[in-house]
């Protein structure tokens, strides 16, 4: 569903928005901030290198400590921790991820009895209509890791500039989520802001702040949030269609079955003719095992035992990243491969070909 109402935003509607926000007395935003803050957590995990933040933000979505956040390398650790608004610190375990929505659910892992955390009622909020462009919003996050323990989240103000499809990338990685987002006129998507809350000016949650992404067309940084009502259609095995939604992930928790995006990807993978070593551990380095004869890889001069270090300047730390990046490159694109051969770095140029039909 594409909503176009934001485009025909009339003076009358603008007026309505402004009036609504001015109806509250001065200082009430401070109260709203105090009400929203306890429902957010600071997330700490892996990262801290090459522009990847080791910190982020999460939303408490149940009184017993389920936490909704965005998918990021930050979560790729056994030592995932959250700090609650009152300063308590807990370890967390991964419950599930939904790649098409780019969200993850984690849970506080403690022997303590937890059943009275303040939380966002995602099921109820997801049923509401998306807000219109022009709506005043507040953004809450732990951007730049300004806060730890009991220090409150940063709060920013802005307006919904548009409700539209996300077309974004980070370097050459296309954004995973391609549904509608709230585009915000404030600079909300800073390092660590992902997983934060976008609320109305009265503190009602409407979106989960996304990652740091760039506009596909202009390369400018986008400030956006995934609506809580977000639902996207995924095609699963045997061309079965299914709707996935944030509410479903939060409701089903451990029982949620993620769409298997990676598997779909490999089927459509563009042809390059590079066969890597078996992907056995979490961080298997992308060593070339074999180069298919006559393939683009052979034409590029790639050799077995080369280690792929960069693709178009983007570091490739593991096989997973290699697969991900190759899945996003259009056929016919010329990419620069930087490989380590022996103890020297070599730059090769490879033109990606159309996907080949897999032999059954």
């Amino acid at each position, binding site marked *: 569903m594409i909503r176009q109402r934001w485009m025909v935003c009339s003076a009358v509607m603008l007026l309505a928005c*402004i*009036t609504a926000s*001015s109806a509250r007395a001065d200082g009430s935003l401070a109260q709203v901030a105090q009400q929203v803050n306890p429902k957010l957590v600071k997330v700490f995990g892996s990262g801290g290198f090459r522009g990847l933040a080791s910190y982020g933000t999460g939303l408490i979505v149940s009184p017993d400590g389920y936490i909704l956040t965005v998918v990021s390398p930050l979560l790729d650790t056994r030592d995932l921790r959250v700090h609650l608004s009152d300063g308590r610190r807990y370890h967390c375990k991964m419950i599930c991820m939904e790649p098409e929505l780019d969200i993850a659910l984690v849970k506080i892992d403690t022997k303590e009895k937890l059943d009275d955390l303040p939380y966002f009622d995602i099921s109820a909020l997801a049923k509401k209509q998306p807000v219109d462009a022009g709506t005043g919003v507040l953004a809450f996050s732990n*951007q730049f890791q300004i806060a730890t323990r009991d220090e409150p989240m940063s709060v920013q103000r802005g307006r919904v500039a548009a409700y539209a499809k996300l077309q974004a990338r980070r370097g050459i990685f296309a954004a995973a989520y391609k549904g509608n987002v709230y585009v915000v006129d404030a600079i909300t998507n800073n390092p660590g802001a992902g997983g934060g809350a976008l609320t109305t000016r009265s503190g009602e949650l409407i979106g989960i702040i996304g990652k740091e992404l760039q506009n596909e067309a202009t390369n400018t940084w986008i400030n956006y949030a995934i609506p809580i009502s977000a639902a996207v259609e995924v095609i699963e095995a045997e061309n079965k269609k299914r709707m996935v939604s944030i509410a479903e992930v939060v409701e089903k928790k451990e029982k949620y079955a993620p769409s298997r995006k990676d598997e779909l990807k490999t089927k459509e993978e563009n042809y390059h003719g590079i066969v890597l070593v078996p992907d056995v551990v979490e961080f298997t380095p992308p060593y070339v095992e074999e180069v298919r004869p006559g393939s683009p890889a052979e034409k590029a001069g790639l050799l077995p035992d080369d280690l792929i270090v960069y693709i178009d300047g983007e570091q490739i730390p593991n096989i997973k990243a290699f697969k991900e990046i190759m899945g996003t490159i259009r056929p016919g694109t010329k990419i620069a491969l930087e490989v380590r051969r022996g103890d020297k770095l070599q730059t090769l140029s490879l033109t990606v070909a159309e996907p080949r039909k897999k032999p059954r």
Partner: protein
Amino acid sequence: MTSPTRTPFAWPGLLAGLCLGLLLAPTVQAQGLDKRLREAEEKRIAVIEKVKPSVVAVLNAQGNNGGSGVVIDENGYALTNFHVVAATGPVMKCGLADGKLYDGVVVGIDKVGDVALIKLLPKKPGNKFAFSRMGDSDKVKAGDWSLAMGNPFLLATDFTPTVTFGLISGVHRYQYPEGALLEYTDCIQIDTSINPGNSGGPLFNMDGEVIGINGRGSFEKRSRINSGVGYAISINQIKNFMGHLRAGLDVDHASLGARIESEDEDGSLNKMVVRALLECDAARRGLDNGDQLVSFANRPMGSVNEFKNVLGLFPRGWRVPLVYRRDNSSKAEILVRLMGVQRQVVEDDKNPQPQPGPRPRPGPQVPSNSPAAKLYEPKAGFANFHFNKLERDRLLAAFRKQGDFSAFKGEWDWKGSGEAQEQKTIFEVNVRDEKTADGKGTQPVVRLSIRGLDYKLEPLQSKLPPGDLKAPAKSGGFITAMYHYRQLLVMGEKGFEGDFSHGGYEPMYMPTPAGQKPDYTKQRIMTEVLRTRHAGTSVKWFFSQADGTLVGFEVTVDRDEDPCEVYLSDYKAIEGGQKLPHRIQVHHGNENYCDLKVEAWKLAK
């Protein structure tokens, strides 16, 4: 490992990448607007109009390369960032919203806190400046609205300030220093847009009170322009340093003398623990490694950031209350004298050592043709000694009103009774000049009799046994203190060859009566400090801010030991009309030494 950079917003000089956009907005008819909205808007416009004349564009002598500032009193004193005046040099040009360019001069600097006080020169002597009042930044809450004003990108050639409007994103924020300087503690985080050139400009609350000085932002992938995350130095922090800044000091921040770490346990709130305690005042007051820091300067301690926030609020040398707990036993409250952060230059008056580390870059030259150059006097330890002399002389003039003793150069004798070391005693102090042993001249001799013991000190003797100055035992140097007291009253500036300068503002705490629990909030008196050095001994004199009375002084005989603290009260006029204290209390280390009632002052001319 990369971390977000936090760069101060000094305008680098060149106007680069400046985009000008033309905005076409639908004009909404005023009568159609909601009344409350219109009122809020009108109020906002009125506030902006009111504060606009106080906003300063700070430029170097050539009229470029600068930042912003705000005038805070009618005499033209204005606040800005240290990193702004570091670029302009001590003599600068200041543009106001009236479109005129004024001469300005640095008064005081706080390098660690990134604050500078400057003074604008009126076009005609006696002309008053429009100024903005300082608010209470502890009342600011995340979610409040704010206005930032200044001269971003040096846009306005007529110095009309740019105004931006936005939210307070967080309060009591901590932002790490760059090296040892430019540490933003307890600062205000804003989404109000600030950009290069906004540095040093005011952050206003919606009543038009200055609540902070805008200085830096968080930047990472996006360039060094507004990222939605800016920081302002809280005005309440600056207020603590204001006396030092007005006194032309190069003021230092404080350290506790210990590292505070979080126990970092999962679950419950953080425990803050004392580690790596140095030999310092906190240790002498009873703090030990492993103690839990419960509160510091009356703020509960829950994180390392919180501790650093509070520490950053105070100048070196201030005393603040600290509560700690040991082994889960009951809490103890102590008063801690804070150490410095930077190396000291002032007190080693004989051979100032060059500071290690990066040498200070030679600042921009002082233009000799500026009238402000006449108000600039460089001196080690000071940003501008000219202003120290002004403050010091003002302080002394107020003190002299209580009594002029300059004619009483003869023998002084004062006596009475009281308690010393928990024993009843009578006491007598006598100071007079006596012939030296070789009979060629005279020298002062101090005699003290207390608890039935007689002490004698010849303070100008070059080879004094180390114990003499500290006599009586456990007083820290009561006899020396009495000598310096008379010296100040009789000789004034001429009596102190080593140092005689204003030391800023500082709280002083009257001693806790024996057997009572301290209540430091009640015992606290805000004072102006005079620092003196004479005959190898440093003294800090505390004058009540309320009425200029000398309420106490601290005599430091040995810098590695506790000073002798003397508290003066019960002021009464003596025969000639001059007021003198009739109660003298002495405290040293953790003990009260004596509490004496003066029954007779005898002063000879």
